[in-house]
């Protein structure tokens, strides 16, 4: 995989990391407890630049919690998360977005009061800087920036093939397209690392085909992907490595082949069919 294509837009940070055997994200003994539930228990692994990792596991295994911990929505009780060698464990969510970690949501979490294009434009927030004064007075700097954001958001919509629905409202889109808009929105931050939370959940076969195409484009761009998913054929076809979570613990990590054959996985999750 050609990693040199990854856009290094945060020049402030890109020289800090990349040292330790090219791992992009290091998760070190992370635990998170909600009351009586141990959502994550001593999870450790690292993700290499340019790889596609999937995380699977039964409902309540802690997969979404894991994404929330990495993206700063929750702070872990114990453990450390490093992105490009920089400790991001206690950073707020918006600061983590500025470092280049993008994500989508299991339940889309789009902004229904904004149009499709505006949703994608919010995604470009980290790479624009106009404040209230310049935009309130419509200074030339605000106008040119607005134009640039609009074009970039449009490009992202074109990539997912929804440019013709730019001015539609979110509620008029079918589920599959809403999931894609979530991806286009996250691409606005030009992420180095993109976490997709159940991108294929609830999608029909033809919608999944479209999704796989979009993921192919992202992979060709050299993006590092982390996918949480229940759809087994989908997971097995796109990922290079699979991590299996059960009861908040990492039980197996390996290639799709190894995972498929692993007895603990079969017992925990896949049932006797596979």
């Amino acid at each position: 995989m050609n990693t040199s294509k990854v856009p290094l837009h945060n020049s402030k940070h890109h020289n800090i990391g990349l040292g330790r055997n090219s791992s992009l994200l290091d998760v070190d003994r992370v635990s998170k407890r909600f009351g009586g539930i141990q959502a994550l228990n001593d999870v450790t692994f690292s993700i290499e630049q340019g790889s596609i990792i999937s995380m699977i596991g039964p409902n309540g295994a802690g997969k979404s919690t894991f994404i929330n911990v990495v993206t700063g929505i929750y702070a872990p009780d114990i453990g450390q998360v490093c992105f490009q060698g920089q400790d991001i464990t206690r950073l707020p969510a918006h600061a983590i977005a500025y470092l280049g970690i993008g994500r989508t949501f299991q339940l889309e979490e789009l902004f229904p009061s904004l149009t499709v294009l505006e949703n994608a434009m919010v995604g470009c927030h980290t790479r624009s800087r106009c404040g209230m004064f310049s935009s309130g007075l419509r200074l030339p700097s605000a106008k040119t920036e607005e134009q640039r954001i609009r074009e970039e958001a449009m490009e992202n919509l074109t990539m997912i093939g929804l440019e013709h629905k730019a001015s539609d409202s979110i509620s008029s889109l079918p589920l599959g397209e809403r999931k894609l808009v979530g991806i286009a929105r996250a691409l606005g931050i030009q992420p180095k690392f993109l976490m997709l939370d159940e991108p294929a959940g609830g999608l029909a076969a033809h919608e999944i085909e479209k999704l796989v195409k979009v993921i192919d484009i992202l992979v060709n761009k050299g993006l590092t992907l982390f996918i949480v998913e229940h759809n087994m054929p989908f997971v097995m076809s796109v990922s290079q490595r699979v991590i299996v979570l059960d009861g908040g613990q990492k039980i197996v990590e390996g290639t799709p082949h190894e995972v498929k054959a692993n007895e603990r996985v079969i017992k925990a999750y896949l049932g006797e069919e596979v």
Partner: protein
Amino acid sequence: MKASNKFQVYIPWMILVAIVIFLPVIISSSYMISIMAFVALYGVLAIGMGILMGQAGLFSLVQPTWFGFGAYIAGILAARGLVPPGIGIIVSAVFVALIAYIIGAPILRLRGLYLACATFGILIIAQISFVQLGELTGGHSGLLGIPPLTIGGFVFKSDLHYYFLSWALCICCLMFCSNVINSRVGRAIRASHDSETASSSLGVNIPKYRLQIFILTSVMASLAGSVFCFYLRFAAPSIFGFHLLVELMLMAVIGGVGNVWGPLLGSFIITWLQEILRAYLGHFFPVMTGEVTAVFFGVFIILVLIYMPRGLVGWVEQIFRLGRRIYEHIKSSVAQ
């Protein structure tokens, strides 16, 4: 297509400016001109209220307090001859921005009704302070001796002068707000109203933008308050209390908070309705005009919320959208 779109954006503004300029030509009654000046000033407050409630999702109830601060500070400075009235307006706006920052930074971390409770408390505290700081504010009897506004040698003295000043302020505020709402900052604010998790995962620093919008609306209210006190040449604690708050809520909800224009329309409707009711209800209910007015507004707002939950402007938008859909349907069926 693009050029005509660009032009279309300016049409409502041109209509508004034309109405403001030509209204005094058509109506000569100074009473009506003065009510229209109040429509503009209350409009500025209601626009702020609409942005806070509708776009940012912040139930902040302190708008009347900023209005009062603007009026009292500018009024006191001018009445005591400390600074020229024009400078006083700016001083009070800066002061209000500072107070809004100090209060807003901690208080905006509250959500929903908790924020409403806390801001309502501040409203009450401020109103009591206006009464208790009698030596400074004139207490219950109000602040007297405010000179007319003078800017660069021009003395604003007639109703017409204040009419134009109020509308100039109102249109500037409306334009600024409309620009902000349709900008990067406005999108971030609207997005964080829809989903805090999603917007912060895209890099939106929610507390920062909430504070900014809170300060913006407070400064707008303060400017309106300053003009208000120079116009009335008077300020009293009872003006800046619960009653004004209810009126502003009515304006925002009836006009519609989904659009910056809604609250201005609401201000027009409520201010005039109140004048009309005051003039005519007296004949039928000479003893309890106030109570009947309150009941009337209560019924009015219930009806609006049932039949036009997005306010008048939202309702008009809906009709336009329906009309366009019918038009396109007919066009496509004719083409076939």
